[in-house]
């Protein structure tokens, strides 16, 4: 290979080196760069240098905000709450520096926090139902299992605000506003027998690291502006009852809308595909009841180097999904 060849090849790969370092490439491009690096010492040195700084910074111990700062901020929030005029004034004056301040048609967001009848005109009964559901879910006041809420939200989104299948679940959600904050804490593993048929995939053993402190549903979103986006549920990962900063996001769309890719495994009798996001967060794909789930674990301190079922993050997600599937099976007659 001549120097000219090397140079041309490097030129072709140059734009991919940085996203390669940061894990922002797809599998094909990632492999292409890796192959180039095998053969090209200068490119390898450049990548090593970037990797080294990245790894060095990631290993650095994080700063902790002083407790007094938190107290000061909470006091400021109290002051704002007690002086609604100031809060209103702030909200209606300059939006400089606040991203995304244009009014938007997110029913759930717009209705956030209105605990009594409010003057906001709702386009329909169902969008009001969705908003209420979303609020209920956000506040942790979840009586029905999260999966039921999600399925309800999903169908509302997909069918233009008309729930077609799980109306019973929606009804249950609407009529059971009791506060059960502990309901979403993960219980002990259930022994429900699996309903799905294993295919010719890698069958994996149950994860050894069961969900530490469980998860808590903190947030539900339905894309009422774009039905194809489906719905998503956000869970905080807890340890000793406190959020760890990690979050599980369960994105749901109609099955078959976007065929997922990944490493196929079978766990608890159900088929999953293991994958990673562009930034290396572990992802689990699975389908149940006509709904395709893409479950992402965000905020891992040490990202898994690859998608393997025995890595803690992936076994955590498998356990999470397994519980949800069984929970849903249990509530379906």
């Amino acid at each position: 290979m001549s120097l000219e060849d090397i140079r041309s090849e490097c030129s072709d790969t140059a734009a991919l080196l940085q996203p390669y370092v940061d894990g922002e490439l797809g599998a094909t491009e990632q492999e292409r760069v890796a192959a180039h690096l095998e053969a090209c010492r200068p490119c390898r040195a450049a990548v090593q240098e970037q990797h080294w700084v990245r790894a060095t910074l990631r290993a650095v111990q994080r700063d902790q905000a002083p407790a007094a700062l938190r107290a000061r901020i909470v006091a400021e929030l109290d002051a704002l709450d007690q002086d609604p005029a100031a809060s209103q004034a702030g909200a209606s004056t300059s939006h400089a520096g606040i991203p995304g301040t244009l009014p938007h048609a997110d029913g759930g967001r717009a209705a956030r926090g209105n605990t009594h009848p409010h003057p906001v005109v709702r386009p329909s009964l169902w969008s009001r139902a969705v908003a209420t559901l979303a609020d209920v879910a956000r506040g942790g006041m979840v009586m029905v299992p999260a999966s039921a809420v999600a399925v309800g939200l999903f169908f509302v989104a997909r069918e233009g605000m008309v729930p077609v299948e799980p109306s019973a679940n929606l009804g249950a959600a609407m009529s059971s506003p009791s506060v059960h904050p502990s309901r979403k804490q993960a219980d002990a593993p259930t022994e429900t027998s699996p309903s799905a048929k294993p295919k010719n995939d890698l069958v994996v053993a149950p994860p050894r690291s069961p969900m530490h402190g469980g998860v808590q549903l903190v947030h539900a979103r339905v894309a009422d502006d774009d039905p194809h986006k489906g719905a998503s549920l956000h869970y905080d990962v807890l340890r000793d009852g406190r959020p760890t900063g990690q979050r599980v996001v369960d994105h749901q769309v109609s099955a078959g809308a976007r065929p997922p890719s990944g490493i196929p495994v079978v766990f608890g009798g159900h088929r999953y595909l293991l994958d990673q996001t562009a930034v290396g967060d572990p992802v689990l794909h699975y389908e149940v009841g006509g709904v395709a789930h893409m479950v992402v674990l965000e905020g891992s301190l040490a990202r898994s180097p690859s998608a393997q079922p025995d890595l803690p993050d992936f076994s955590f997600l498998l356990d999470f999904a397994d519980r949800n599937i069984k929970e849903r099976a249990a509530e379906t007659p």
Partner: protein
Amino acid sequence: MNPTARHEFESTALPQLDALYGAALRLTRNSAEAEDLVQDAYVRAYRFWHTFKSGTSVRAWLFTILRNTFINRYHRANRNRAARTDLEAQLPALGPEAAVGHPNSRVPAPDAALAARITRERIMTALESVPEDYRMAVILADLEGLAYKEIAEVMDCPIGTVMSRIYRGRRLLHKLLHDHAVELGLAEPASDDDEAVATNTVHIEDYRQRGRA
């Protein structure tokens, strides 16, 4: 604001306090200023909480507010301009137009053990001396783990610019930390090897044109 919104803000936005404070410390280089900056950012965030789009990254949203608050309130004072200019002057020495392809000197391969012997304080000092835009990009990418897309959102610039800022920031950091390691006798001085590298250097313009949008 009503109790539900307050609860939501406290459970969603407030857990990011440590991350925001860390970034503010690196931006202001001063703990008292960092506290003020974070407090201002949180007050703004709370007042505009109704504009936060659920389903989007609360971290990216908060960092955007933090950065804008910093620029509005602190940046105008033109503090530390000397340090910034001094370091910017070092950029050409890092490669032609801070070439994206390769280092222009044969710095020995980075060593994980070396990183372990450089103190946290030294690393943070080095980070704080990197020009602001590069520093912010590196903080968001490497300390906070944000994706390019989120960093582009926070810094209000194209993804190609994000990559270039991260690249330059890391190169500067590497140089600073390597120089420090040489001072301590932990590493060998770099030897210039321009000829070998010249044929393989890819210029920033190529990089930008080929950059992923």
